[in-house]
C-alpha cells in the first residue's frame, strides 16, 4: 500500500477539480457531475481511513454517500428536466426567475 499522503493528495486534487467545475461551468448538468466528483473524492478519504484503522465503518459511510449521490442525481436531474421543459435552457446564469 502507498503512504496515506498519496491517497490524501489524490482525493484533494479531485476535490479541487470538482470545485472548479462547480464554480466555472454554465451547464447545470456538468455542475451536477462536478458535485458527484467531489463526493467521490470524499469517498476515497473515507475508504482510506477505514483501511488504515482496520474498521469497516468508513466504508459504510462511503456507501451512504453513494446512496446520497444517487438521490441527489435523481432529484437534480428531475429538476433539470422540469426546468428545461419550461425554459428550454440548461445554463446556470439564465436560471434567474427569482432575481425579480
Amino acid at each position, binding site marked *: 500500500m502507498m503512504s496515506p499522503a498519496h491517497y490524501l493528495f489524490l482525493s484533494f486534487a479531485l476535490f479541487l477539480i470538482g470545485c472548479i467545475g462547480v464554480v466555472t461551468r454554465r451547464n447545470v448538468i456538468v455542475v451536477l457531475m462536478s458535485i458527484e466528483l467531489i463526493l467521490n473524492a470524499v469517498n476515497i478519504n473515507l475508504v482510506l481511513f477505514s483501511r488504515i484503522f482496520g474498521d469497516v465503518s468508513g466504508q459504510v459511510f462511503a456507501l451512504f454517500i453513494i446512496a446520497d449521490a444517487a438521490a441527489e442525481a435523481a432529484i437534480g436531474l428531475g429538476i433539470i*428536466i422540469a426546468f*428545461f*421543459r*419550461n425554459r*428550454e435552457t440548461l445554463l446556470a446564469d439564465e436560471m434567474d426567475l427569482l432575481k425579480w
Partner: protein
Amino acid sequence: MADTIQNDASQPNNTLLGADELVLNMGPQHPSTHGVLRVKLKLDGERVRGTECVIGYLHRGVEKIAENRTYQQFAPYVDRMDYVAAVSNGLGYCEAVEKLLQVEVPIRARVIRTILTELQRIASHLVWLGTHALDIGALTPLFYCFREREEILKIFEKYCGARLTTHAFRIGGLQYEAYDGFEQDVARFCKDFERRIQDYVDLLTGNSIWIGRTRNVGVLSAADCIALGATGPILRASGVKWDLRKAQPYAAYDRYQFEIPIGTNGDTYDRYMVRMEEMRQSRLICLQAIENIPEGPIFGKVGKVIKPAPGEIYHSIEAPKGILGYYIVSDGTTQPYRVRIRPPSFVNLQALDKMIRGHLVADVVAVIGTLDIVLGEVDR
C-alpha cells in the same frame, strides 16, 4: 398528407421535453417499407405525431406506355404493377378489354381463370403474411409462407412457363389449355395447404405477443375506410361486407359457394384474421372449381387485331389487395387512347397517416405491413 404535418407544427410544446420534434426518415432504403416507400415520420420520443409518404421511386409510367402499345402488347405490362399478384392484374385488364369489345369468354376459360386467380390470391396473401410477421419480428413464418407459395408458383410455371410475371391470360380467353395433371396439382396443394394454415395459426393467432402487437393498432372505422376509399381486406376487416366477387360477379365466381369474412374492430389483428380466412375460402373455391372444369373451347371470338369501337369502359375486380379498376378509353384504333388504373395499394396507402398517428415507431412497420402495399402498384 403534407398539410397535416404543418397543422401539427402550429401547436408548439406538445413534445416530451418541448425540444424540437425528431423527424425520422424511413426509407426509401429501409428493411421494412416493402420496396421503395419513403415515410417521413414526425416523432415525439417514440410516438408518431405525423407522417408524410413520399412515393414515386418506382414510377415507370405504365399508363402512358399503354397509349403507345396495342391492346395485346400492353397486357404484359400490367403484370409489373402488383408483381406479387400478376395473375389478378392480368385478369382485370383482359376482362376490361373484353367488356370493351363485348365478347363472351367461354366458360372453360373463365373457370381456369378463376382457379389461377384464386391461387394467386393465396400466394399474394402468403407474401403478405410472411413479410408482415417478419416486420413484427417473427422470423420463421416467412419461410413457411414462401415454401407454400413456391408450390403455387410451380403450378403457374407448369401452366404458362412463367412464375412471377405470368401473363397467363389473353384478351378473349386463354392461350394455353390446362396441362395434364393440373387438377391433381391444385388438389394436392389444397390438401397440404389446410395443414399449413394450421401451422401459421399455431405460430401467430394465439400468441400473446402477436395479439399485443396487432390488437388496437392502426384502427380504421368503416366510415374512415369508405371516406378514404380503402378496399379489400382492409375494408372488410372494418366490418363492411363488400367483395366484388359477390357484389358484381366476374369470371366464374357466381358458380361457387364461398363466404366473405369480415372483422369487427378494423384493427391490425382483424385484418390478419380476415386475410387468413380469405386464404381458406380461396382454397375452398379452388377445390370446388377443379371438381368440374367444363369442357369446351378456351378462346372467344376475338380477332388477331383488336380494334374496339370508340368508347370507354370501366371494369374492376377484387384483387388480393382490394379493388383493382381499369378505365379504358378507345378511339377506335388498335391502341388505347387512355388507360387509367385504380390500384388498390395506392388508395389504401392513404390510410397510413390516419392509422399511425399517436402510435409508436414500432407500430409503423406493423401498419405498413398490414396495408399490404406493393410499391410497383403504388407508383406504377
